[in-house]
């Protein structure tokens, strides 16, 4: 597998010139397993979308190295998906074969059996023809993980994968995350549960618009740093200063 690290250089992302993420420097090493932690509105999801090249950067640059857009697997927040849409579980998982089938080509028999295996490995054997509207939140999250399995992505971005998911499902899905890590894929997950991060994620980025700390979880997720992140969150207000974005030439 080619290296799939991502390097960030003075990245600032702004909405209406109000920065959502401020001067971020650092890198997600190839094959690393990183948790992004921070209060609501800290710019975590924004950062993920910027990593996918969906948002323009106000300054700085993101170097994705050998990672092409199609190599990125993305798990959106549950609220971004229309779960009442009449589509079957099998079809959702098969969307993971987009790299081979694209928007217009047929899906091969190999993809179908691969999709079936992916469903089995998330514990949903035989759910292929169920409509997604009939699944529980946990089962649906398993379906999305099966789709990610089929995508075979080098860089996997998970946006709050375990929010509103029960302990048993979280345990099973964390097992899959660990497997991706062992395969040498780069995994970045936005999480809220500090204990979970300490137990399962070797790297962590503590974000509160500005990076508070980034590195091995033991050194970043200290009580001190978490308090700082919370204080920064409480200081925010509607009239936050407009970010003076330095000229690209000056940076």
């Amino acid at each position, binding site marked *: 597998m080619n290296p799939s690290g991502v390097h960030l250089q003075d990245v600032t992302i702004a909405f209406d010139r109000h920065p959502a993420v401020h001067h971020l420097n650092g890198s997600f090493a190839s094959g690393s397993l990183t948790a992004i932690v921070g209060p609501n509105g800290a710019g975590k999801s924004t950062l993920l979308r910027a990593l996918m090249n969906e948002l323009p950067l106000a300054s700085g640059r993101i170097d994705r190295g050998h990672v092409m857009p199609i190599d990125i697997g993305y798990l959106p927040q549950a609220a971004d998906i229309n779960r009442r849409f*009449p589509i079957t579980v099998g079809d959702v998982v098969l969307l993971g074969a987009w790299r081979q089938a694209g928007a217009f080509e047929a899906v091969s*028999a190999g993809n179908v059996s691969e999709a079936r295996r992916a469903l089995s490995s998330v514990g949903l054997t*035989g759910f292929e*023809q169920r*409509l997604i509207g009939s699944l529980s939140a946990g089962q649906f999250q398993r379906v999305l993980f099966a789709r990610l399995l089929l995508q075979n992505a080098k860089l996997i971005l998970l946006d709050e994968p375990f929010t509103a998911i029960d302990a048993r499902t979280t345990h099973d899905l964390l097992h899959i995350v660990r497997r991706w890590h062992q395969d040498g894929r780069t995994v970045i997950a936005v999480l809220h549960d500090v204990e979970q991060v300490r137990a399962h994620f070797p790297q962590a980025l503590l974000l509160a618009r500005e990076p508070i700390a980034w590195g091995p979880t033991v050194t970043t997720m200290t009580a001190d740093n978490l308090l700082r992140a919370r204080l920064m969150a409480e200081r925010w207000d509607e009239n936050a200063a407009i970010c003076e974005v330095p000229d690209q030439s000056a940076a």
Partner: protein
Amino acid sequence: MTVYQLFILPFVEYGFLRRALIACVALGLGSGPVGVLLMLRRMSLVGDAMSHAVLPGAAIGFLIAGGLSLPAMGLGGLVAGLSVALLSGLVSRSTPLREDASFASFYLTSLALGVLIVSLRGSNIDLLHVLFGTILAIDARALYFIGAMTSITVVTLAIIYRPLVVECFDPGFLRAVAGRGSLYHFLFLFLVVLNLVAGFQALGTLMAVGLMMLPAAVAQLWARTLPGMMLTAAATAAVSGYIGLIVSSPRLRLGSDDHPDGKPNLWLLAAARTVRGYAPASTPTASDWLRKKHERRPLPHSIFGPDDLGRDGHIGFGQNAEHRRQL
């Protein structure tokens, strides 16, 4: 009055009824599936707004052609509808107004302009014809026009089906893997306008959206999968068109003497929806009646088409005996 006299003879006797029937079936084939997608995208009211927005274009076409000319009105309507769609998309992206708000302001302006243009030159009857259509005046040329619109719709839907479904159900995923969500969104809006324009003569600019939304509402209650909903919508539109034409046929004289028309279609559609709508929520859908209890659901048509069925003899998903046992 025999069954033959009631249900078939009118179409044997009157050529205009035959043409109207073919028009209804063709319109249903195009508008039904488009309406289902429109409803699933929670854009039902956008369809309504669009049907008002096409009016000034249709009116200008009406004036230039000097009467009800489907191609002239259609072209004008297409241009007006797409402009409103593009403008409101632009406004909602560059201002805090949401897309529905900008749609509302544009279509109201558009509707007022349309009524103004028609009344500048035409009579009140003309205005009524533009707004509500004259289904029994459909001639062979209008039929070809409607047929072409329906063909374009069905073929385009078939080609962009997969990205359109994904854009509807998980837009973030489509952005990540293909990144052209707005292209498909716009193509879809184009199809909506196209079908509204096709429905001009049959139902008029105001009512054309009825053939889109009512069958879709019926279909959502009767079918569970997307292809099932599309088929149900197309069939519902065609059948209610047929019954509506019988009700308003000269033989029964239930339609008004001056211009018997397609409004009974819409009443019937509304009735069909209401009948289903008032049934308790737990009432089984049509497909349940056709199946034994506890029987597995049959394989729904995959969005990937028939090619994802296994080539090695057994049929793709869910038909695997081993999986059935595990359930």
